[in-house]
């Protein structure tokens, strides 16, 4: 390339300059060195050199810029010369110049300076030239809105060209200018474009309407373009026009719906039966991409009755055989959504989609398989039995990229059951010998998870123990964590495991998680492991070198447990550990050491009751993701949510939130279309975090608050002066905190198994939040409710649609009168006494659904409302409560009132 040559020659030139300059410097230095001593010389020399270097760099960059400027100026003059010329071959020259400009543009050089010249040269009949010109104009019009006006003329002229191709191209470029003050020039061509007799132009025009909407929404709606699109949507003979109308309308109405009620209705109307049927009838005419779009719209349609669902599915069944994976997935989504309320048909749908899905994962690029596998994983979590006979499809290929392998391993874990478990574990063990460390870990974890899921774990335990014999640090580390979890669920295996674990050299275990696991086992089974005291002693001696607070915490607990079982051998170690712990800089470690110390002061039996009570085997490990979240992800099937395993509102920016989801459920809509405050995601995240925290602490590997009676040490400092014999005040703090974040049941679930014995022994049952009672308007609550709030159903509906969820609670009322509820009425009356009024109720035993509302006292009319959706299940004795509030700051207080009102319910 010419320009390139120029550039290199310049570079050479500058390099020569540098040489010359450096030569001069050398001469100068020589001269100086004659006069000065050699010692002094080294300093100026180095300084000079630096000088020289920076100097030359400067020169070069300036030259570079000059050079580029020169080239641009060159291009400018050349373009200018060509502008008026009509000589033969001028088009070819122009084309070369344009190419050069575009290539500069691509690599990020600003060529906007050539704008007027480029526009001047644009009078051409050459299509490729035109396209390059359009591309250029589209990229720079935004930077030069004033100059963009120059292009309007020729673009408008091209919009009236005889060639439909040129008309379309020109219209597309016109709409892509994205300059606000040029909107007036856009409306006319767009209107003619929509009526053009050529399909290509109409396709472009339909998209143009959407572009216009993004530049100036009012200009778009004022000119009634959406209505025109609606007409085309039904009647246009060209399928691509219909598809583009559909995408445009969908986006416009979704954006509009966020601000106006009318648009919301409009949208519901638009995607009602007539349009859906019209689209379905033509489905085969659409291109594969347009089919995806149509199918997406259909998946949101709610059929009137099962027969309609079956009709739709019959029409679409052959789509499952389509070669395009996107179409197949979109069809699957339609099928799943249509049958979601018909359990048996839903199951049949799973059977039907199985084969196409399995084909999709083995064909296409690995990125595609990744996307498909993510979806398959979601489905498998819902119906693990379905794929259990096809587990071989999820065996990894050696050449699969790690992200595919990881998902396949997760799939294998999910489909494992009694019949295929042995094969799957054998296969997973093969991966454990993988070169890729991440995959090895993943495989080992998978084996562990399978062991925890199933009952017949005989063979698996052997497998896990074999991993320990592989003598690779990371394998050992991963396995130790798993063996620990396994022992917590199946204590009966302790004998076999401990024998092998005892052989693990503690030096090879470096990872904090693995170390804590090993220490836990040493503490827990110290009576079976002869050398446990000595190993633990080694750890205590290395206290200062131990970086992880998690390990130090675990060590404190383990040494204490050891002490209860083998006091003579371990008294010294315990002393050393407690001393080190109390002197520890980490707050939690310090607190726990102090706590243990004071407990021990009260007597060894008391301490043992708290630190090492008899354990019950853990039956189910807490799930990290709530079922509500999972359902929401399922609603967003065939989107990034599934890949990220998060509902879309968790990862989309707030300004985008609300724009792209679209669901019939008012709650879901309000969730995603909540205007721009972060209350919701942050809260649900927090709640999630809390779940995680609690479940993690149950696994005894959480940050800071691990081990038995884990909540206590943190709060000991509050009450460190009061006698530990009456630990009620700190515990109350815990209980309060838990209830205020609405996860008391979880706290109970976790604590119940572990500490129940200790707790009952100390008689602090009530203080753990098991039977919290608050009276409304009690001293702790400043929130008072209006006794006669006025709210009509329509306003309730609207508010419910608009407000974000301020609070969700899961409340359990096991053994309380509420569990005997046989109809909604008694609860309604009871709640009314507590100033919480009912808007609607329904359901029968065992499931009830209520919508309640209440108003803050002395708030202006129409504000200060709390809206509640309450799902009661009397058979599981649980209530799921969603609270929305005008004023979210008092929502949690309202939550407390609500909860206490539920608790105080009695059938009398």
């Amino acid at each position, binding site marked *: 390339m010419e320009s390139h040559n120029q550039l290199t020659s310049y570079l050479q030139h500058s390099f020569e300059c540098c040489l010359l300059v450096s030569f001069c410097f050398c001469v100068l230095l020589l001269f100086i060195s004659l006069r000065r001593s050699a010692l002094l010389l080294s300093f100026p020399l180095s300084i000079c050199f630096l000088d020289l270097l920076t100097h030359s760099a400067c020169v070069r960059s300036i030259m570079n810029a000059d050079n580029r400027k020169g080239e641009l100026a060159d291009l400018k003059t050349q373009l200018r010369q060509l502008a008026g010329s009509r000589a033969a071959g001028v088009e070819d020259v122009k084309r070369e110049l344009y190419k050069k400009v575009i290539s500069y543009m691509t690599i990020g050089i600003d060529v906007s300076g050539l704008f007027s010249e480029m526009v001047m040269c644009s009078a051409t009949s050459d299509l490729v030239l035109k396209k390059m010109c359009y591309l250029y104009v589209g*990229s720079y019009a935004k930077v030069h809105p004033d100059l963009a006006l120059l292009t309007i003329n020729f673009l408008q002229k091209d919009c009236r060209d005889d060639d*439909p191709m040129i008309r379309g191209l020109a219209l597309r470029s016109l709409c892509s200018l994205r300059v606000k003050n040029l909107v007036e020039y856009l409306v006319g061509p767009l209107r003619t474009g929509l009526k053009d007799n050529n399909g*290509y132009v109409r396709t472009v025009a339909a998209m143009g309407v959407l572009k216009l909407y993004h530049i100036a929404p009012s200009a778009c709606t004022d000119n009634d373009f959406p209505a025109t699109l609606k007409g085309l949507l039904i009647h246009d003979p060209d399928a691509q026009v219909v598809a583009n109308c559909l995408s445009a309308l969908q986006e416009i109405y979704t954006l509009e719906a966020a601000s106006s009620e009318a648009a919301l209705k409009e949208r519901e109307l638009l995607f009602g039966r007539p349009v859906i049927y019209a689209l379905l009838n033509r489905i085969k005419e659409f291109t594969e991409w347009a089919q995806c779009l149509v199918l997406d719209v259909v998946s949101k349609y709610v059929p009137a009755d099962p027969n309609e669902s079956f009709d739709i599915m019959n029409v679409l069944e052959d789509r499952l055989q389509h070669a395009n994976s996107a179409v197949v997935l979109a069809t699957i989504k339609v099928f799943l959504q249509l049958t979601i309320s018909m359990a048996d048909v839903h199951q049949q749908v799973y059977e039907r989609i199985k084969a196409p899905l399995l084909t999709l994962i083995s064909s296409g690029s690995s990125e595609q398989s990744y996307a498909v596998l993510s979806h398959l994983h979601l489905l498998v979590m819902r119906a693990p039995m379905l794929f259990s006979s096809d587990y071989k499809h999820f065996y990894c290929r050696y050449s699969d990229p790690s992200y595919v392998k990881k998902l396949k391993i997760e799939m294998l874990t999910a489909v494992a059951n009694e019949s295929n478990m042995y094969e799957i574990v054998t296969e997973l063990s093969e991966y454990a010998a993988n070169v890729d460390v991440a995959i090895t870990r993943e495989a080992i974890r998978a084996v562990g998870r399978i062991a925890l899921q199933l009952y017949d774990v005989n063979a698996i335990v052997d497998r896990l123990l074999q991993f320990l014999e592989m003598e690779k640090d990371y394998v050992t580390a991963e396995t130790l964590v798993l063996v620990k979890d396994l022992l917590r669920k199946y204590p009966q295996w302790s004998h076999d495991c401990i024998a092998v674990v005892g052989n693990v050299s503690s030096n090879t275990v470096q990872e904090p998680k693995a170390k804590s696991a090993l220490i836990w086992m040493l503490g827990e089974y110290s009576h079976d492991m002869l050398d446990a005291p000595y190993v633990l002693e080694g750890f205590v001696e290395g206290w200062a070198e131990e970086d992880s607070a998690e390990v130090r915490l675990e060590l404190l607990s383990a040494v204490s447990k050891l002490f209860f079982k083998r006091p003579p051998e371990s008294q010294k170690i315990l002393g050393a550990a407690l001393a080190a712990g109390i002197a520890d800089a980490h707050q939690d470690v310090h607190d726990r050491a102090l706590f243990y110390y004071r407990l021990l002061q009260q007597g060894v039996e008391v301490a043992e009751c708290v630190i090492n009570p008899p354990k019950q085997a853990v039956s189910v490990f807490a799930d990290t993701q709530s079922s509500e979240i999972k359902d929401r992800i399922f609603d967003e099937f065939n989107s990034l949510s599934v890949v990220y395993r998060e509902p879309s509102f968790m990862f989309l920016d707030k300004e985008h939130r609300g724009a792209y989801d679209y669901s019939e459920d008012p709650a879901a809509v309000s969730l995603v279309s909540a205007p721009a405050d972060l209350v919701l995601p942050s809260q649900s995240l927090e709640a999630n975090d809390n779940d995680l925290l609690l479940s993690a602490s149950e696994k005894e590997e959480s940050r800071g608050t691990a081990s038995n009676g884990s909540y206590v040490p943190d709060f000991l400092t509050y009450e460190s002066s009061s006698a530990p014999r009456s630990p009620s005040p700190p515990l109350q703090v815990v209980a309060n905190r838990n209830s205020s974040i609405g996860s008391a049941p979880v706290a109970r679930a976790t604590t119940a198994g572990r500490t129940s014995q200790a707790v009952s022994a100390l008689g602090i049952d009530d203080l753990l939040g098991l039977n919290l009672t608050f009276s409304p308007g009690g001293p702790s609550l400043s929130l008072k409710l209006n006794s006669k709030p006025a709210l009509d159903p329509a306003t309730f509906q609207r508010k419910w649609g608009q407000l974000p969820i301020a609070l969700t609670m899961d409340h359990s009322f096991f053994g309380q009168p509420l569990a005997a509820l046989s109809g909604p009425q008694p609860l309604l009356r009871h709640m009314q006494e507590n100033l919480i009024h009912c808007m609607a109720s329904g359901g029968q035993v065992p499931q009830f659904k209520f919508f309640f509302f209440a108003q803050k006292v002395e708030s202006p009319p129409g504000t200060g409302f709390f809206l509640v959706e309450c799902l009661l299940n009397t058979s599981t004795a649980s209530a799921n409560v969603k609270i929305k509030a005008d004023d979210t700051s008092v929502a949690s207080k309202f939550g407390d009132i609500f909860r206490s009102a539920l608790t105080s319910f009695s059938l009398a």
Partner: protein
Amino acid sequence: MPVSASAIYFLNLRGDVLINRLYRDDVGGNMVDAFRIHIMQTKDLGTCPVRQIGGCSFLYMRISNVYIVTVVSTNANAACAFKFIVEAVALFKAYFGGAFDEDAIRNNFVLIYELLDEIMDFGYPQNLSPEILKLYITQEGVRSPFSTKPQDTRPPANATLQVTGAVGWRREGLLYKKNEVFLDIVESVNLLMSQKGTNLRCDVTGKVLMKCFLSGMPDLKLGLNDKIGLEKEAQVKARPSKSGKTIELDDVTFHQCVNLTRFNSEKTVSFVPPDGEFELMKYRITEGINLPFRVFPSIKELGRTRMEVNVKVKSLFGAKMFALGVVVKVPVPKQTAKADFQVTSGRAKYHPSVDCLIWKIRKFPGQAELTMSAEVELISTMAEKKSWTRPPIQMEFQVPMFTASGLRVRFLKVWEKSGYNTVEWVRYITRAGSYEVRC
């Protein structure tokens, strides 16, 4: 919302932008930098094809020496986005004729911009069919063919076809002197065999590729010896398959030209083919697969510095057939110094760059048994008993006129209203997909 891509970038391996096409304003112009800094320059490159950075999702894939990055700011449809890129690349290949790499992009960047403009508008995929696009995007860049007579108000071919309800993938008025159809059944066998010689997993993914040079608007009908198709037909006696067995296809997908309603009702594959080359159908089979090869490896580690590798490969297909380009890759430890070979056929060599002994046999006859034995010398290392995890032995091969699934074409009928004669060519080939044997 299927895709609504905000931008598409093509980058080379160093991260230089080859093509950038912004479709929407909702992402900043510096998205490439975000990709370069947070993905390309980190270890994460290649660990996950979908990444989220600051509210935007990056879906990227590498094709030869080019990264194609799709940036979306919405909850886009990932499967669709990847499929779109794959299809787009196929389209570019159709235009440049073959290779898709950095050089091809640099040489054709104007054309690519042109195509990107057509195949996606404001982030929504439009028509990607090369057949239609070639009507109005010509490499020479002349005015579109349907505008030669501007007075003629004939709408473009695309619209015509749509209006008449005819087929969008085929032009009207094609004429060939000689009407020919080429049909290839290409199968790849995937195998994973354990040390003990049990089949852990075995399946065949097959494609039916066609090349049509047919005049007019022909209607084609393809009959295979698959179970469903045969059961549907009355004359089951006319099975051509030697063993008389029928093939059970686990799953089939078809090119959009195939009339799926007819397939579902009559179980015949009937279609109006596009002109030129295309993939008619894909299928997957897991039952009753005839493996073309069996591998019997034995690897013995003799002390710390020596290894003995014995690999016996047995061909199981008919004696009259033969396999071409057979390659057996036997992995060896990194510290391998050298290897001495003895082979009954072909050539073997140690390739240090891939840590493999590679044994190549140009022509492998059917019903034969070939062996390679090698003495491998290892450099002794200080690492005590750093056990070596053995990757599986991999095989590559092609067996013409053999289908691992046993699938056969029973008939291929061409019907056109002018009633010309056609010549049909049918070929079969079986290739190795991932053919792995653990040792």
